[in-house]
């Protein structure tokens, strides 16, 4: 049963990823990206990561994708005739060859390693969210705070970048709008 779900989520996420890269209309690309994100969140559920599933749906599909579609509609882009790079075959051929080699290496790898300290029964006793929270707010508190400061900086940077009352095609002065 899990294998069937895994095959569905994996195939659809790869297919939608290819569509995201290959479709012509940017809005269609955004909707294909939505399919990728939702099916990747399905893979998270299969891996017992329910909290990450919720975060993926809320933050990625709910916030980031809406931001993308919002900017797409704001800019009102025209679909171009040549939407690929002019010499894309020179990029695509080596990339596909390299991907085949990497896949070959990955599939024959044994993936041994030291087991960690949270096996599935211990996680399932209190739930995945509990386990993530205990780990994050004990051992990884500093990283959590750093991410918080990073997000604050990103918000301020985005506002400062996007705010410019004067058009920038003038004489080059006053680009900061101050």
């Amino acid at each position, binding site marked *: 049963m*899990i*294998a069937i779900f895994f095959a569905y989520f*994996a195939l659809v*996420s*790869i297919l939608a*990823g*290819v569509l995201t*890269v290959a479709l012509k209309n*940017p809005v269609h690309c955004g909707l294909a*990206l939505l399919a990728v*994100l939702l099916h*990747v969140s399905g*893979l998270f559920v*299969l*891996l*017992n*990561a329910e*909290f*990450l599933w919720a*975060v*993926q749906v809320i*933050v*990625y599909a709910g916030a*980031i994708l809406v*931001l*993308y579609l919002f*900017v*797409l509609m*704001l*800019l009102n*882009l025209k679909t171009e005739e*040549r*939407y*690929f*790079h002019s010499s*894309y075959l020179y990029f695509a051929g080596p*990339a596909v060859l*390299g*991907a085949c080699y*990497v*896949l070959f290496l*990955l599939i024959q790898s044994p*993936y041994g390693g*030291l*087991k*960690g300290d*949270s096996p*599935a029964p211990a996680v399932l006793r209190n739930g995945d969210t509990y386990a*993530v929270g205990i*780990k*994050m707010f004990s051992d990884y508190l500093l*990283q959590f705070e750093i*991410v918080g400061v990073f997000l604050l900086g*990103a918000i301020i940077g*985005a506002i400062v*970048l*996007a705010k*410019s009352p004067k*058009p920038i*095609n003038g004489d080059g002065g006053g680009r900061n709008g101050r």
Partner: protein
Amino acid sequence: MVPLSAYVAVSAVLFITGLLGVLIRRNFIIVLMAVEIMLNAANINLVAFSHYLESMVGQLVALFIIAIAAGEAAVGLAIIIVVFRGKISTNVDEMNLLKW
């Protein structure tokens, strides 16, 4: 039971798809979307190893990656808006303002 290598293979294929998108698309917004695909492929990898090696650290790092992807999307789209105001285009070939 799905083997770990299946998850790693899916992740690798998605990552290569995103990498191709970054390399061959000309629209800057689609390039950012392809970057999101690459970040998602990394997340699949981290969560799969976190499950199979019975450690919580992979899920934590995936969580941090999602937060950083949110910041990257916000700043990237702000840059797109600024460039679009000046050039009325989001084509990556025409963004050569900093070239000398």
